[in-house]
């Protein structure tokens, strides 16, 4: 059978917003699925109202924060508070194979759009709900972002320097962890549906999901009674292991010496072969004991070179090292270029912009593709209601008149960051 994309023909109604849900569906969108975002002018996606904006005046259609997370998708704008808006949502759900949502638990049910309502007419629907702390239990109502979850799931405490307050991972880190697991679950559900014809309900607590990226430290407490502590950039079984300052303005090199062999080559490369014989540095145990002095010694070398030079010297000797890439480095990274990581697409408001895939892999027969820039708010109302859902112009006009299809912002858009 001729098939160019893995998920050609798979239809997703996306009520989820911000990062987790929208990133999960993108694995399918990268490979041919049709994803329709359900949005509203009355309640803008958090990503639409935050930086960076193209142009001088922020608008809902000019944030590349939103853009980065939503290429390859369509957008419709409807008011779910309006009964006729919910009627449209219901139609879209009937069209879909997969529904995603991340409202506070209970919201979709209140609107008659919950899983139990949908499955009565569509037993094959795959319905995914994601929330901070999951449904049921005393904290199910917890509202927040990945920036919150990063703290109660332990990532913040484990980031930074032992002699200071924690220095948390930037932004909504757990969103990026959670999206991997939920995308995977959607695919597993598709495989099950394919065999049995049955859909199912997928329920995610981002707290529970994210802990899988810290499970050994959690077990370390529960089994051994040891609380893992943040330790800068050090690692128990390696030295030197850290991020070292280089020549230039805030330039740094990450170095990991993972074996005695690498230690020998490292010493050669920095012109100090004799170090391997010095008792303070001759063995891993000795280097761990004298790690402060060792780090200073490494910095003495890195400070005499640019980050790029020292990366090249160490790589030539087979020692793991990489420039701490800044955003400008990422856009110029030759490796990312060779994998066509960025795709320039023309956005109706933002003009040519560089978009990224969500899938960090290339399937050899059906590679990931970015075909459409992120959508403007409600950009595809006509296409979706008419072409995908088969509604008439008159019907659509009625929804616009009664406000259940939204077309205008309420007041002026304000930004948080």
């Amino acid at each position, binding site marked *: 059978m001729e098939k160019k994309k893995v998920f050609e023909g798979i239809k997703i109604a996306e009520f989820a917003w911000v990062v987790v849900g929208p990133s999960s569906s993108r694995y399918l969108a990268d490979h041919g699925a049709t994803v329709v975002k359900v949005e509203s002018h009355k309640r803008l996606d958090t990503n639409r109202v935050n930086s960076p904006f193209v142009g001088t005046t922020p608008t809902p259609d000019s944030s590349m924060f939103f853009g980065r997370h939503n290429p390859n998708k369509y957008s419709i704008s409807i008011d779910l508070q309006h009964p006729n808006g919910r009627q449209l949502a219901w139609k879209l759900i009937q069209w879909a194979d997969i529904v995603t949502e991340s409202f506070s638990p209970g919201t979709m049910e209140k609107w008659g759009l919950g899983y139990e309502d949908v499955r009565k007419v569509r037993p094959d629907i795959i319905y995914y709900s994601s929330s901070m702390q999951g449904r049921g239990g005393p904290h199910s109502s917890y509202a927040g972002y990945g920036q919150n979850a990063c703290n109660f799931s332990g990532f913040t405490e484990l980031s930074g320097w032992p002699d200071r307050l924690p220095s948390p991972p930037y932004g909504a880190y757990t969103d990026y962890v959670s999206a991997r697991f939920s995308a995977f679950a959607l695919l597993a559900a598709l495989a099950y549906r394919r065999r049995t014809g049955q859909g199912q309900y997928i329920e995610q607590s981002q707290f529970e999901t994210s802990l899988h990226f810290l499970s050994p430290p959690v077990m370390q407490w529960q089994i051994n009674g040891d609380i893992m502590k943040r330790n800068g950039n050090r690692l128990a079984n390696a030295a030197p292991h850290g991020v070292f300052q280089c020549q230039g303005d805030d330039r740094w090199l990450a170095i990991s010496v993972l074996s005695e062999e690498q230690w020998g080559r490292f010493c050669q490369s920095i012109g100090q072969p004799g170090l391997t014989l010095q008792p303070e540095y001759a063995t891993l145990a000795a280097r761990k004991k004298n790690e402060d002095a060792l780090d200073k010694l490494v910095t003495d070398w890195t400070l005499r070179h640019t980050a790029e030079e020292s990366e090249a010297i160490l790589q030539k000797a087979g020692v793991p090292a990489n*420039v701490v890439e800044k955003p400008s480095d990422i856009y110029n990274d030759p490796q990312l270029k060779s994998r066509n990581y960025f795709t320039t697409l023309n956005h109706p408001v933002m003009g040519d912009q560089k978009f990224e895939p969500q899938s960090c892999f290339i399937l050899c027969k059906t590679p990931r593709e970015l075909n459409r820039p992120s959508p403007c708010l409600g950009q595809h109302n006509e296409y979706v209601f008419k072409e995908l859902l088969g509604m008439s112009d008159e019907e659509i006009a009625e929804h616009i008149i009664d406000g259940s299809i939204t077309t205008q912002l309420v007041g002026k858009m304000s930004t948080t960051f």
Partner: protein
Amino acid sequence: MVNEQTKSALPGFRVLDLTEGGCMLGGRMLGDVGADVIKIETPSGSPSRIAPYYKNIADPEKSLVWFAYNSNKRGVSLDIRQPEGQQLFKKLVGTADAVLESFAPGYMSSLKLGYEDLCQVKPDIIMASITPFGQKGPKSNYQASDLTIWASGGFLNDCGDPDRAPVWISFPQATLFGGAEGAIGALSAFLYRLDTGEGQCIDVSMQEAAVSPNMNILPMWDVAKIEFRRVGAVSYVPRTGVKQPIYFRCKDGYVMILAIGGNDPYASSSERLVKWMGEFGMAPPWLTRINWWNDYNASTLSQELADKVGQAIEQFTLTKGKMDLYLEGAFQRQILVAPVSNTKDISEDIQLRARNYWVHLDHPELGQSLPYCGPFIKMSATPISYQRRAPLIGEHNREIYIEELGLAEDHLKALRDKKII
């Protein structure tokens, strides 16, 4: 058995898992949703059997990293560097649907076990290769570690205090992302195979996975030419450079409060926080006069005001404990507050307990069952179940080589003597 099968998302889907380190998570995810995952390691034991150890006893059979990322797998030992080991591996491939591996690019091909070689044995095989930079390209042969991959993705640049080096998360993350991407890729390829009968290979780049969490940092450069520098424990407004304090010391630790404005839910949350402070006489008049929508948005907020607000909030948080601030703040007052939890706090969390999160798996050789993080997601028709603890070295050699592949007893013994298994 039939019942068991219908409850699995991937019954009979056999995966050979050759990965190491965090990449082992990929096979674990496939095993969790019902695949038959066979972890293959060298006869002397996998190099991923590392610390932390059960009761801090340094023993490859007591590695908590191994336990965590290899439950729901069976395990065999096999030296694929030796010709007879390669033959046996190909025999296994003949029975398998997918292979996951995380060796350096070209290594499997050098053993005549590359994708093309395996297609000779099993034409519709799926093969996911997880490497730091991908199979081809100028950096594909780079030596790398979890830390250097983190650096190559740019997320490392985003994190840490401004006056010190950029900092990672003390438990390595990049290879875990790699494993998860490998699992998603393998399952995508499986769905493609169901439609077409064809397998394919999957080329995962962990560098790309480490680019992913950059949130809004990358386009800041591309769109506005703002080269982001790490800001530490604050919320950052790129257009003005204002840094808003959001981490506060309290009696027994720290909390994060998203005391920011401009939009809801932030603005209303901050307003409620000020009201709470007021009840304790800790909201000075200038603070109560702030309009969190108009005076405290990205365009209007000054650094001076942000600092002043931050100090006032910390005065308040210092009078309370972490859990009081969290429980009363988040659940009774709808304030965007989160405790900075350590692994002990997480283990005692009442929400995780109420949802019966923790799962115990029996470890007969340790004479006890051990607690594990529970299902990564709840699936109604195909619930994730914990069938088995991680395998001991070569635990299922007999079961798989003799009972399933049909090797003779003396053949197995010969392989063992030659240290091939």
